[in-house]
């Protein structure tokens, strides 16, 4: 609440009153209309956000605070603030005579205001909230926003008293500061920023975070030396059966001997009560002395488990390498098809220390392969991005395109040439493709042949026809060539209108009438579009007159810019989802996504680089009689090389970075592996992926920075 008022001005009570009723109204009345609008919009927006965040959020019905309650609270706060402001103003005016007192007054006022408001807030809330509601009110953030809005309201009343239209407008610094505070407080609430929760719940994630942070255990294979001895046991033990023989000790080899070798299984009834089976005496030897052995049980199917609760399972071996222990035969689920006595195995295992082999684990190899896939994906997307975006960027450069004009005859020739040439290219492709094996046997070569033929023939036909029609039109009598122009433009308009009509039926009518209705309406809308298009095309040519020109360059510029903007506004991850639908999950889908986004982003950056070049050399080359192509090669390209290099490196950086996470949505590469491991709770493996991504991105950062330093 700065007091930088003009010594000439006197406060205007009427404006202050108006602003008290409607924020900003006083300012608007005294001539500062935009100021008033800012204030009004700020109060409305912040209030709306606050009510949305604090009261009307369906996700948190418990915290409901009605709009009416908010408004009451707001008004009470504002009244309180105004009262304090008035006190402050009176004190400054009549009580504080010394410089010191005035200097202290402002911070003291702010401090007192904050304290009073915090003390008063619960009292004020009690007037319109029940105790139960008050208890449910979430934190202080919603109250703080109301305070801020109230402060803006109060400031606005004060401001309205002093503003004199354009003649005297005090600084709006306080206003902006309050708005920023309000937005930040609301932001905290809406984003649900909660440091206490982060601290309280950290310990749950500690183990997982640790695994992700240091996952190298699973990056390598380890070998363990293992001493194993096996003894066979028969269960159950009906009379007359033929139990396996008792094992005898063997010299120099681990052995285990079980007596008896035939017995009954332990049993667990429906209540979980356990009846022990036969007690086995186990003796063993030939193991490494003074180390532990581990006892395992294998059922007839060969599934092993540790028989916990039936006797000791980890036994210390004596100095002579022997041990003795006892174990009840555990309860084992026997497959229902098995009948009669079954042979089980008792296994004694002594494990040596894990030995580092230096071999990479299967997971690590998988991660490295996926990482390579990611890097190549980023690289290929950048390469294709450059190739496709350079020509586009020339079409999207205003300074190159705005000089391009054509007559209506030339335009007609150009469009017919472009479409006809492309069609001829396709026909030629149809003829040539089988010679190299077609799409099935040689997909890339075939595609390349089609692409080149269509592009080249379209451009050649475009140039030939647009020039031919242009020069023919010049030689014909003016009226005839005028007629040709009108007819041609009408034809183009009809075709475009026809397509738009179809699109309207399927796109717009499809929503209101459903697919059936759209199909029914399509012929009519298409015909209507054709007639309308023909009329508009003809009208345009008519308006251009005999010698008028069409700013074809600006039209291409606008269209290219629009396409680039759309391509860039859609995030690579969204493009990747479309790519997955298009070509299925895998790196190709990710490549498509990154390429589309790269073309759009590079196209814009490149075209802006072209727009900012020095026009002098272009002028000089045009003056020598150089063609458009020559001018671009010798005047434009040398000038745009440094920015192009910088932008390309920057994009390469982004692409490799993006390629590591594009797999999250099925785009292949290491992201695909990462999200799988996370879903399988294999956090150490996920940690490997995270580490590889980090190392790659950091390395790339370093490389591109040093290349940029050298080249630009």
């Amino acid at each position, binding site marked *: 609440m700065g007091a930088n008022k003009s010594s000439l001005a006197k406060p205007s009570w009427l404006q202050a009153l108006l602003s008290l009723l409607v924020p900003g109204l006083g300012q608007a009345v005294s001539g500062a209309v935009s100021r008033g609008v800012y204030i009004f919009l700020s109060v409305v927006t912040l209030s709306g956000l606050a009510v949305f965040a604090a009261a009307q959020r369906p996700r948190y019905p418990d915290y409901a605070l009605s709009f009416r309650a908010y408004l009451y609270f707001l008004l009470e706060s504002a009244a309180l603030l105004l009262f304090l402001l008035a006190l402050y103003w009176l004190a400054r005016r009549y009580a504080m005579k010394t410089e010191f007192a005035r200097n202290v007054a402002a911070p003291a006022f702010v401090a007192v205001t904050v304290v009073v408001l915090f003390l008063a807030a619960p009292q004020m809330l009690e007037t319109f909230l029940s105790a139960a509601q008050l208890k449910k009110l979430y934190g202080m953030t919603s109250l703080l926003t109301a305070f801020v809005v109230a402060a803006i309201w109060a400031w606005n009343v004060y401001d309205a008293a002093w503003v004199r239209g354009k003649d005297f407008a005090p600084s709006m610094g306080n206003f902006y500061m309050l708005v920023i505070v309000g937005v930040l407080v609301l932001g905290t609430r809406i984003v649900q920023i909660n440091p206490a929760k982060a601290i309280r719940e950290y310990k749950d994630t500690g183990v997982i975070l640790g695994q992700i942070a240091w996952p190298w255990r699973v990056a390598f294979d380890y070998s363990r030396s293992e001493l194993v001895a096996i003894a066979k046991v028969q269960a159950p033990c009906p009379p007359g059966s033929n139990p396996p023989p008792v094992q005898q000790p063997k010299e120099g080899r681990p052995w285990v001997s079980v007596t008896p070798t035939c017995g009954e299984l332990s049993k667990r009834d429906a209540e979980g009560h356990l009846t022990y089976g036969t007690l086995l005496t186990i003796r063993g030897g030939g193991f490494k002395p003074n180390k532990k052995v581990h006892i395992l049980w294998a059922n007839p199917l060969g599934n092993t488990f540790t028989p916990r609760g039936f006797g000791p399972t980890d036994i210390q071996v004596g100095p002579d390498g022997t041990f003795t222990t006892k174990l009840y035969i555990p309860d084992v689920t026997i497959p229902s098809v098995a009948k009669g006595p079954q042979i089980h195995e008792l296994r004694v295992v002594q494990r040596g220390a894990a030995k580092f082999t230096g071999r990479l684990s299967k997971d690590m190899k998988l991660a490295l392969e996926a990482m390579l896939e990611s890097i190549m994906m980023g690289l290929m997307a950048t390469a294709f991005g450059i190739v496709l975006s350079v020509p586009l960027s020339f079409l999207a450069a205003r300074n190159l395109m705005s000089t391009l004009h054509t007559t209506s005859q030339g335009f007609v020739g150009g469009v017919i040439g472009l479409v006809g040439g492309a069609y001829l290219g396709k026909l030629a492709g149809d003829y040539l493709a089988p010679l190299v094996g077609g799409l099935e046997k040689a997909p890339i070569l075939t595609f390349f042949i089609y692409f080149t033929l269509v592009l080249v023939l379209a451009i050649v036909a475009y140039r030939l026809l647009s020039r031919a029609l242009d020069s023919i039109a010049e030689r014909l009598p003016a009226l005839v060539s005028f007629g040709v122009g009108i007819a041609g433009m009408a034809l183009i308009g009809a075709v475009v209108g026809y397509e738009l009509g179809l699109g309207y039926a399927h796109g717009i009518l499809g929503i209101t009438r459903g697919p059936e209705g759209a199909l029914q309406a399509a012929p009519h809308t298409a015909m209507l579009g054709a007639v309308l298009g023909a009329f508009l095309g003809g009208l345009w040519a008519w308006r251009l007159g005999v010698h008028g020109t069409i700013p074809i360059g600006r039209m291409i510029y606008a269209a290219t810019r629009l396409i680039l903007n759309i391509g860039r506004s859609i995030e690579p991850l969204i493009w990747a989802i479309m790519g997955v639908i298009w070509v299925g999950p895998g790196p190709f889908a990710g490549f498509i996504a990154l390429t589309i986004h790269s073309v759009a982003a590079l196209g814009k950056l490149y075209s802006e680089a072209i727009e900012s070049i020095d026009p002098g050399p272009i002028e000089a080359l045009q003056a*020598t009689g150089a063609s458009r192509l020559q001018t671009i090669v010798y005047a434009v390209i040398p000038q745009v090389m440094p920015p192009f290099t910088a932008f390309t490196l920057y994009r390469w950086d982004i692409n490799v970075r993006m390629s590591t996470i594009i797999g999250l949505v099925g785009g292949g590469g290491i992201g695909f592996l990462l999200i799988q491991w996370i879903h399988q709770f294999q956090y150490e493996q996920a940690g490997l992926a995270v580490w590889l991504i980090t190392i790659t991105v950091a390395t790339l950062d370093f490389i591109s920075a040093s290349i940029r330093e050298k080249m630009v």
Partner: protein
Amino acid sequence: MLVVEHLTKVYEDGTVALKDVSFTVDDGEFLVIIGLSGSGKSTLLRCINRLIEPTEGRILWNGVDITQASEAEMRRIRREIGMIFQHFNLVERSSVLTNVLTGRLGYLPSWWSLINYFPEREKERAMAALERVGIADKAHNRADALSGGQKQRVGIARALMQEPKMILADEPVASLDPVLAHSILGYLETLNQEQGITVLCSLHYLDLVQRYATKVIGLRDGRLVYEGTGEQIRNITDEEFKQVYGQEAQRLSVGG
């Protein structure tokens, strides 16, 4: 012979840069255009090779109407008309030789530029042009490594590559010091006298005009307000001077 008839240029924003300008330049003339900044000198020169599209009027170059020429015809006309600029308009990042070679582009097939191909004889021609302006030793330097005077000589060499019948010079010495100014204008005078190349040159300093011009026209606010021979400009009266440069103008220097 160049004949300019009723030439008018109105820019898109409504500025009238040239208003009904007519004059004739005989072959081999050294025509100097004088006038204040913004009087239409640059626009006039650029209308002659249609870097700027004239609004009205005709420009006849050896009987051909430049204003009606098609794109292909314009290319052939432009390659006979060299142009040099106040700010040299070199491609700074390219070599001096490449800059000179670009002067020949009007004679070469477009697609050669895609593979950056210049025939050997054109490179020899470029070296010869550089030799004539005395900086053949700089041929392989980058253009941005040259001084202002050297750059303008590259500009002249580039124009020479066109084997021009006429040279348009848009304040060619305005960015140079007086000694360099004489050296550059000296080259133009030599070309004018020895090869009979017509020169149309806009200049600021009256002493330079008096030294080099064989014919002078004066523009003021886009209108032709003075026309005289070299003899007449050397004896320009105060009244004529004020007609071109305005009532408040003072004649500062005589000689130079």
